Structures are given as structure tokens and as C-alpha cells.
């Protein structure tokens, strides 16, 4: 079957590329092994968590004392505590200024290749996919801090409505709620770190042995269930105005789960990101999937490319292996958005790192000895994270001489070189911006 564009990879960058191209009326096939890092790490949209301290987040959290051990302690209380949460433009002024200054010193970074204006367009496009009630928003005009499953605070940029109340959590004014038998969240652990109170609920006997994140979030979608736990939380509330729960408030209609619980309990509810899998990430995936299918995009989830057909500097087709048969799909243009090691976009053997689908060259450190630093928490990022595919300004892979390797293959997402998304806290931002940009560039080139 022939398409205008085949997107390989179903993480955020691939989905964003498919969305962008689909809006231009292209006939698209998207192929993916899985949901990429969406189902694992993406709870919110990071753009750049590490912009210089001066430019960084407004401290949205108030501290009631100056306990040096408190995670709030490091952040001064601002004079005018932001009074209302507003959806500002795609980049608030702090983020806009911080990012543009940051990019100046990093010409090779994927953000610099995309450029500030296109980053804004890409983020707007993303935001537009999530109309209320389950919308994404900024809090203030820079990064905000959200509490995590370790009781730490984490800077991030766009957050879903279910996490907003967490950004204004105050010491001793929060109740953190966990569930007995759910091993990936410990209310007391989080509460101890945040100087709040913890509460571990026992679910009905059946569940006390063990329950998973997906099962719990499905249960949350069940009205009688959330009524029961809502009433129990209300009973045990000691006047706290905010209640934090692990980010499991339903795969679907989580805004409604939040609203219902708030009505029963009489306090603001917020979700706290936890160990994978990421239920908020699945919501993002499901929304893209629903939208893309509605737009007529062909969606092949759970499939992988077994072979490519290359002719000169062009890709002529890809084999999708679906035992016992292989299908051949062809397109005028291709976008490679297969992620890094976790996603399978990059593979390492004992000696070197390679890209398994097109065998595109990977910029990487000289030897394995240099991949990782001797300390895990070294101030500098591990060099291996910078490895990836080098592209020209139009996001096509290039070799050492700067020549384009495949004229009709564009590259997007975390597989690109010259970023450290985990340390920068820029993962989703890079995925959204480069997915958008690779599609735009691909569209420029006629068949």
C-alpha cells in the first residue's frame, strides 16, 4: 500500500509528526511497537526544566516555616503569590526569555534547529489537541513545581488540569493518600518529605493483596468505587485543603474523577506522578490515537519494521513483520521517530551504538569507557545521552561530511543527537517541537 508519508514510531514525536502532516491533508501511515516513553515517563510536558535559576520557576509553594530539610525551603516566597492560574500563551514570558537565551549557547541542540517561533507553534498545536475539560496549561509564565512520588518537587511546564492543585500545596496543608497493596506509591514517604500528612487506605479485602496502577486507575473510573474512597478520605481529613493521590485518576475522564472526588471530599485534588507506567501519558496517547484515526490516519500499533528497501539515496518501502506474514508499505516520505534505547531507536553492543532500521550513523563517544561518568549523580550529564542522529537544518540525517544520507527520510524526537533530555528536563518539548518540525520539513518536499 502506498502513502504520502509513513511515520515510524508512536511516541510523542511520531504522533506529533502524524498530526502535523495530517492537518496538511496527507495520507498517512503510523507504525509503532508501543507508546514510546508516553506510557512510561511522560506525565506532564517538560520544555526546559533547567533554564537558569534567575529565569526559572516562580515559587508557587508557600512555606510556613524555614525548616532547612523541607523541600520548600530552597524557594523564597514571592511577594505576590500568583493569585489566579491562567492559561498563558504557548510560552510564558519567563520560559520565552529563558529558552531563547539558553538556545544561543547551544546551536546544535534540536531546539536551536527548530527555532523559537516553531517551538511555540508546535506547543500551540499540542495544546489545541486537549480542549477543556482535560486541558494542559502553564501555571504562571515559567516552569511550575509539582510534587512527585518521592516527595521531591519537580520543575515542569505544561501540566494537565489534574495536577494543578499540587503546584500550590503548602506545608501541613496537604493530605497524601495511598492504597494498601499498591506497591508503587507510599503516602507516608511522600508526606514525610513534603511535611504533610499521609494516609494509606485499605481497599476492600480482594484488593489488599496486590493491585496494579492500571487496575487502580480503571477502578477510579467506577463511580461507586470513587464514592467509597471519597467518603473515607473525607472522614479522615483534618482540615487540609488539598489532597494528593498517585496519578491514577482514571485513564478516561480523569477530570470527572477529580471533580467528583473534590465534591465529596470538599478539598482540591491533585495527581502525583509515580513510577511507570504513566497513566497521564496513556491519556495523551489515547487522545492522539482517537484524533488521528478520526482524521483517517492508518494506525498500526504493535508492529515493527523488519526490513527497509533502499535505492540510492531514497527509501522505497518498509516491511512490517506481522507473523507469519510481512507486509510491504511504501510512501513518498518517511519520518523516523523511534526514540532512544528504551524505545529501541538506538541499540548498543559492547563496542558501539547503532540505529537498527536504516543504519544511520550515530554520533557517539569514542569508546564505551566514556559512555558513562564514574558517578551516577555527576553534575555533568553522561556522554551517552548526547549520542544520536546528526541532521541538517531540515532534520534529515547527515554523515560526517555533512551530506544528506537519505533524501526522503526525516528524523524526529529523542533519537536526535546533542541534547540531554533527562537532565535538561526537555523530553516532551523536544519530541513535540521536532515531531512538528520534521513533518513541516517533509511536507515542503514534493514527492
Amino acid at each position: 500500500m502506498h502513502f504520502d508519508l509513513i511515520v515510524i514510531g508512536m511516541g510523542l514525536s511520531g504522533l506529533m509528526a502524524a498530526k502535523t502532516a495530517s492537518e496538511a491533508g496527507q495520507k498517512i501511515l503510523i507504525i509503532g511497537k508501543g507508546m514510546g516513553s508516553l506510557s512510561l515517563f511522560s506525565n506532564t510536558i517538560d520544555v526546559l526544566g533547567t533554564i537558569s535559576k534567575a529565569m526559572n520557576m516562580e515559587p508557587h509553594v508557600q512555606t510556613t516555616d524555614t525548616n532547612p530539610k523541607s523541600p520548600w525551603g530552597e524557594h523564597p516566597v514571592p511577594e505576590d503569590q500568583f493569585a489566579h492560574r491562567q492559561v498563558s500563551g504557548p510560552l510564558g514570558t519567563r520560559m520565552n526569555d529563558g529558552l531563547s537565551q539558553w538556545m544561543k549557547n547551544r546551536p546544535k541542540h534540536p531546539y536551536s534547529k527548530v527555532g523559537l517561533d516553531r517551538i511555540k507553534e508546535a506547543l500551540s498545536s499540542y495544546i489545541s489537541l486537549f480542549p477543556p475539560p482535560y486541558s494542559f496549561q502553564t501555571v504562571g509564565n515559567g516552569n511550575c513545581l509539582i510534587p512527585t512520588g518521592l516527595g521531591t518537587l519537580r520543575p515542569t511546564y505544561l501540566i494537565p488540569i489534574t495536577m494543578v492543585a499540587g503546584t500550590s500545596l503548602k506545608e501541613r496543608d496537604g493530605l497524601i493518600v495511598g492504597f494498601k497493596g499498591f506497591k508503587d506509591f507510599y503516602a507516608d514517604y511522600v508526606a514525610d518529605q513534603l511535611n504533610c500528612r499521609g494516609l494509606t487506605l485499605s481497599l476492600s479485602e480482594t484488593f489488599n493483596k496486590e493491585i496494579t496502577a492500571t487496575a487502580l486507575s480503571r477502578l477510579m473510573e467506577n463511580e461507586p468505587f470513587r464514592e467509597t474512597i471519597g467518603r473515607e478520605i473525607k472522614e479522615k481529613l483534618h482540615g487540609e485543603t488539598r489532597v494528593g493521590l498517585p496519578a491514577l485518576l482514571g485513564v478516561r475522564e480523569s477530570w470527572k474523577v477529580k471533580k467528583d472526588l473534590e465534591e465529596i471530599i470538599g478539598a482540591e485534588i491533585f495527581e502525583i506522578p509515580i513510577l511507570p507506567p504513566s497513566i497521564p501519558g496513556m491519556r495523551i496517547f489515547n487522545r492522539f490515537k482517537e484524533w488521528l484515526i478520526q482524521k483517517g490516519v492508518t494506525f498500526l500499533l504493535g508492529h515493527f519494521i523488519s526490513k527497509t528497501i533502499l535505492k540510492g539515496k531514497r527509501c522505497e518501502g518498509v516491511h512490517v513483520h506481522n507473523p507469519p506474514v510481512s507486509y510491504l508499505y511504501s510512501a513518498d516520505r518517511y519520518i523516523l521517530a523511534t526514540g532512544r534505547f528504551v524505545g529501541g531507536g538506538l541499540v548498543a553492543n559492547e563496542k558501539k551504538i547503532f540505529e537498527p532500521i536504516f543504519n544511520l550513523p550515530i554520533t557517539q563517544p569514542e569508546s564505551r569507557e566514556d559512555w558513562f561518568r564514574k558517578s551516577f549523580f555527576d553534575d555533568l550529564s553522561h556522554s551517552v545521552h548526547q549520542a544520536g542522529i546528526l541532521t541538517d537544518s531540515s532534520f534529515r540525517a547527515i554523515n560526517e561530511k555533512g551530506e544528506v544520507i537519505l533524501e526522503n527520510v526525516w528524523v524526529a524526537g529523542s533519537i536526535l543527537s546533542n541534547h540531554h533530555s533527562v537532565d535538561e528536563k526537555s523530553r516532551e518539548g523536544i519530541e513535540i517541537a521536532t515531531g512538528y518540525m520534521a513533518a513541516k520539513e517533509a511536507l515542503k518536499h514534493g514527492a
Partner: protein
Amino acid sequence: MKIQTEVLIVGGGATGVGISRDLSLRGIPSILIERGDFTFGASGRNHGLLHSGGRYAVSDPEAARECISENRILRRIASHCIEETEGLFISLPGDSFDFRDQFLRACEETGIPTTLLSREEALTLEPELNPDLLGAVKVPDGAMNPFALVLENARDAEKHGAKFILHTEVTSLQMNRDKIKGVCVKDLINGEEYLINPSYLINATGAWANQFLKLAGLHIGLALSKGTMIITNQRLNQRVINRCRLPSDGDIIVPNDTVSILGTTSIRSEEIENFEVTPAEVSLLIQETSKMIPAIQETRLIRAYAGIRPLFQSEEKGGHREISRGFTLIDHGKRDGLKNFITITGGKFVTYRLMAEKTSDLVCQKMGIDTSCSTHLKPLPGISEPSKLKDRLKKIGQPATAGGGEILCDCEWIRREEVEGVLTEGKLKDLQDILHRTRLAKGTCQGGFCIYRLLGVLHDLRMTRGDSNKMLKGFLEERWKGIRPILWGPSLKEEEFIESIYKGIFNL
């Protein structure tokens, strides 16, 4: 605080704990102090190989004789800590049969039973062996659980009146002309300092022997040798596989429960504590051991680690492989005029009991007491517990409905109840103490997930000490030492995953 004791043993490795048990069975009271947890040094950082002695038969017959004799004793007294696997010494193309003949003669002379196997016989026993092998010699090697063995010794010693003080270090010694009178110690958890007055002092600090002796202004000829090992994600061999040649790098593969351990290197080291395993050492071990079992090239590795062997140098010899692996017992009364002071060091894990016996004999001689050793006759307490892997797996594999709470460690199937049991037993002072006593963090993810859950359970039980996130960081940094050198393939994938969790989601 001042404590009086007959014998003070410094060092909670196999030797120190062995001495403690030996003395307790002779009715002599003792206190053992250890800076960390039991098996903090080489006792916890070795192959877990129950040597038949074959490895040293040619190069060091005395050590070989000690090995085979202790091997037989341990099978009797500690069968629950041992898997009787047998071992093969295999000859590969290029390995000389002259050496094999020499090996067979040396085994005969040192009393190590051997069976000569053809290529086909060896392959039938161990299908993963290199099919090009020329032949093999079977010897009574085995696999053991060093930590369990040491804990069992401690348990028995405690039952007979011995005392143990962990996480406590010696800070200085008080001496008069011919005796050590007082030992100043410091509790490393609460910082408390106090004095212990022993009648006799035993230095069983292994690789730290000279560091300890420095407190008395003494020094002995001790070479430190770093040995590096790698743990595979699955068990590749049923028997210990040795290369039939003079001991060299990467010529042993020891099966251990569900994994295999590849080893080892021998590199002269000056560092006892801050040593690292490099990616290059790992590559060397894989290159060498995969000549014996080619599947190693394709096998996932879960961790690399290293230990420091203390090797006694009686006189200057060439390389460190040639220094005897035998042990040495020093009577500082004779040597240095400190009548109540003894040092025991060198040796192999397998000979810990013999080392303890000889040390205790010397103590008794100094005390003028005539009692004899019985550690070779009396089995260790837990001997009736299931020891075979199959039986233990049966116990572990009980269905979830049998209770025990949620599974905290998905790699090793550790249930909450088991962890809570270890926690409430008490005496545990830090995270590593807990990890030592369960299989948590020993599996494929090396604690990436279960460490968080363990800290969570500690909070649930209100048993945390200090800042959990700081402990978590400390754990991840320690974990890093073991996995950094093996990061490629699926291990690298998992590493990216773990880093994305802790540095990403959790902003640690």
C-alpha cells in the same frame, strides 16, 4: 562506657566470625567488632567457589591440600550453604596436554580426586561448553553462599555466648610495654566512643590487616590483589567450569543459584576501599570466559563487582599470581613483643575454618588452656533447612493467594512479608544491612524498583532513619559501581529507564 572481654576479635569476615564460633565452642568468651556489616570485605566479594583445591594443585600444593580438606569438612557441617555441583577443568584447543598431565599428577599428590572425561562426556554434562574443547577433568568443586555461611557461624557463636558489635570501628590502641591494654572504638551510627579491655586481641581484618597494625606501629608483608567478577542474568552451567591451565584472568565460571559468576582478574592494588571495575576489565573477562562457554557473548549481564584479596608475602616473589594463597598466622608476642596480640590474614574463603582453628589454638596456648577444636565436627545450626535450589524455589513460588503481601521485588519475587520480617528482627542499622539479608536488589534491575518500595515500607512501618531520599541517592550511587562497566544491550536500555525515573520523573 568500658567493656571487659577475654578475647576481642576485629573483623566480621569469615575468619573473624569463624574464630568467634571456634572460641565459643571451646567455652572462651569473645566480642567481635566489625566496621560495617558481616562480610563487608573479601568474604562478601568473591566467587562463592567451594574450591576443591584443583586450581592451586600445580602452583601452590600447600594451599590445594588445605582446600580439599576444608572442602570435605564444609560439605559436612554446612551442607545447607553449599551446592555440590562438582567442577570441570577443561582443555581448549591450544591448551597443552602436558599441563593437564601435570595437573592430574598434582591432584593425586594433594589428594584431590579426579575423573578424566572425553570431549563428548564433558558436553553431555555441560551442553553450553565450547564444542571444540579437547577434554575435561572432573573434580569435587562446589558453589557456596558465603553470606549465609558467615551468618550461620555467627548464629551458632551467639548461641554459645559470643557477642557481635557491628558498624563499629577501632580508632586507637592503648599499649604498655608488652601488651595491648585497651582498644578505643567508635559506633559509626551514633558516634558513641568507648573502650574495650581485652585479655587477647585478634586482628582478623583481612585486607585491612596493615591498616589495623599501623595503630600498633607494626607492618607485615601483604600484597593486595583486586579480583573482578561479573554476574550473568541466568545460570549457564551446572558445574564449576575452570580452564585447565595455570591460574590466569577469566578462567572460572561458577554457577550460583539462578546465575553464573564469571571471574576473575588479579590486579595488584593499593586501594582497599575506593576501587572500581572498568569497562575494559569486563570486556577482558567476557573475552576469556566466552572461550569456555560461548553463550556468554549473548548473555545479559547484571552486575560487575570486585574484591580485594589479602595475599601474604613471606619473601619477594615475582607476580601476585605466584604469591601463596595460603594463610598466615602471626604471633605478635614472638614477632614484636606484644604478648596478647595475634594477626591472621591471607588464605581463601574455603579455608576460613582452618584459619579460625589455628588462631584459636594459639589463643588457647597463650591462655594456657588445653581444649581442642570442634568446629569440624559440629554442624552449623540451620543444616536441616532446605538447601537444594529446587526445594527453595518451591518455597518461594507459592501462589499469591498464600499471602505474604505484594511482591516488592519482581526480579527475585520477594514479598512484603519477608521484608517486614527481616526489618522487625531488628539490629539493622542501614539499608545495606537489610539488602544483605534478603534477595532484594539482587535481580536484573539491581534494585531500580524495589529500593523505592523498600524505603516506602520503612516509612509505612515508621522505621526510617534520616532522609530517605538521601539514602536512595546513596544506594543508586553504590549500585552504579556495579552496573556502569556492563552497560550495553538490554542493560543499557534498563539503565536509561532507571535514570529517566529517578532523575526524570522524581527529579532526584
